[in-house]
């Protein structure tokens, strides 16, 4: 699938100028821009702030499904092949909580990985990328309509971009 030109990609050499640009974009009210960085960086993380990740919904749904399936499988097995152990009732909840708990963790974890892959894959397809961002540069991609381009370009450049181009 080809990438359609939809915004502006700026490349930065320094963390300071990149985080400055991120703050300026946020102040101007831009949302939904993408930041690429070759290494995790506290300053950039702080500049981006704490946007809500869509992956957490995957974790919740996966966990709930796991919990449900843990109880379902234990109860189904107990009644499908009844063996009385230690004089306890067939469907005894206490030990099943352990299975349900582990299944919650397992499915929650797997769903998190799947959600992470799904969202990053989709974003990677939609946003342009500069290979230097895997080396020693920081990239910011801002999706914006044609009429807003000059102002965004200006802002990114004054923040200290090495290169600003329309993608």
């Amino acid at each position, binding site marked *: 699938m080809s990438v359609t030109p939809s915004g502006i990609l700026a490349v930065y050499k320094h963390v300071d100028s990149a985080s400055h640009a991120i703050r300026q974009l946020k102040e101007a009210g831009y949302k939904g821009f993408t930041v690429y960085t070759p290494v995790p960086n506290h*300053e950039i993380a*702080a500049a981006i702030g704490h946007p809500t990740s869509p992956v957490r919904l995957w974790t919740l749904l996966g966990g709930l499904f796991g919990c449900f399936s843990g109880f379902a499988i234990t109860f189904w097995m107990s009644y499908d092949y009844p063996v009385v152990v*230690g004089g306890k009732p067939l469907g005894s909840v*206490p*030990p099943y*909580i*352990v299975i349900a708990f582990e299944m919650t963790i397992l499915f929650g974890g797997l769903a998190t990985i799947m959600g992470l892959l799904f969202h990053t894959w989709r974003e990677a397809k939609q946003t342009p990328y500069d290979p230097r961002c895997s080396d020693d540069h920081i990239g910011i991609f801002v999706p914006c309509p044609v009429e807003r381009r000059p102002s965004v370009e200006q802002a990114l450049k004054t923040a200290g971009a090495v290169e600003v181009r329309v993608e």
Partner: protein
Amino acid sequence: MSGGAHVDLRERGLHAPLRGHVVAGSVLAGVGLVTFIVGFSGSEPARAWHAYLINFLFFLGLTQGGIVFAAIQKVTKAKWGGAIIRFSEAGVAFMPVLLVLFVILFFGREHLFPWIAHPTPVRGNWLTTRWVFARDLFTLLVLSGVSIAFVWYDLKPDLAGARSLVKDWRGKLYDRITNGFTGTPEQVAENDRRIGWLSPLLIVLYAYGMTMIAFDLIMSLAPYWVSTLLGAFFFMGAHLSGLTTLALNMVYWRRQLGLESIIGRQQFHDLGKLVFGFSVFWAYTMFSQVLVIWYGNLPEETAFVFYRLWGAWRPVSILVAILVFLVPFWGLIWVKSKTTPFTFTLFSLVSLAGMWLERYLLVQPSITENGPEFGLTEIGVMLGFLGLYLLAYGAFARAFPMVSPRLAARAAELQH
């Protein structure tokens, strides 16, 4: 942090407003004393002593569990808690009071420990009045001693820094504690080395000592019941109550001392995560013990659990699970509820109330033939302990700086 702000923090930490602690503390302690005296000289002396033991365990837990938070911060070399660490260390002033309260407990032993009237030869000499009280007093002495030493060395550099701002008795006290400490690199290294071995020692002694207390003051109330996990259950719950107490103190002092700029989102979020995590851990230890007893189905073990899960005590057990686990779990799972002072205070209070009820549930069903009783005696004695705690805490705040500019500056380095 600039020099000006540094001096300002020193000044502010030394002048903590204490009227609330003194007034509320004295009134509550008075109320408690009156209730207790009326209680044990009235028709139900045993009931007053039961309430006394429950509150002794609860307040010992939240005091010592809070000091251990400071020790854990030192062991893990954590910086985020720099501005709030003193609020947990200040509880150390209550330790000597607890020692006195434990000695008073000795006079109520006939009302509390069934093995005094009905000796248990199956336990050998383990449960005899002299041996139980001797070893528990020793345990508490060691715990208080190491806690005081730990706080002493963590205070030292701050007292040296604040020495020029105090005079009279405070000046003499600071001179005594700093003992020539001026902040040279060698002295700082020596001080850090001392804290470096005192803090892990305190954590290990906490686990050991609180296990001893739990075995002697909770498990021995049902002398034929044994649980090796009870100690861990007791001291991890105590640590949770220490954390929630710290949360309340943090919210209170943050406003009283005007520390909004240095106690921010990060501290609320991190402490919230700890409270959340230990609520889950409490449920985990509780469940792992119940599960094993359920599986084994040995009569001498199940009696303790059955008595609490069925019959008159069932509602209390359910309430404890809701207050300590379910409400804080769903309440504090969100970032917003941890970082908002109001909701964080609310859920900390719920958790703390649940912990009190949990101590009540551990002690009371073993030593009374009645169902749950919750009346003036229980409330009054609890308020009395709370009053003594507030007075001791206020005394610490009167004597020592309530915020450490040195540690607060280290925490501030993280913010940018």
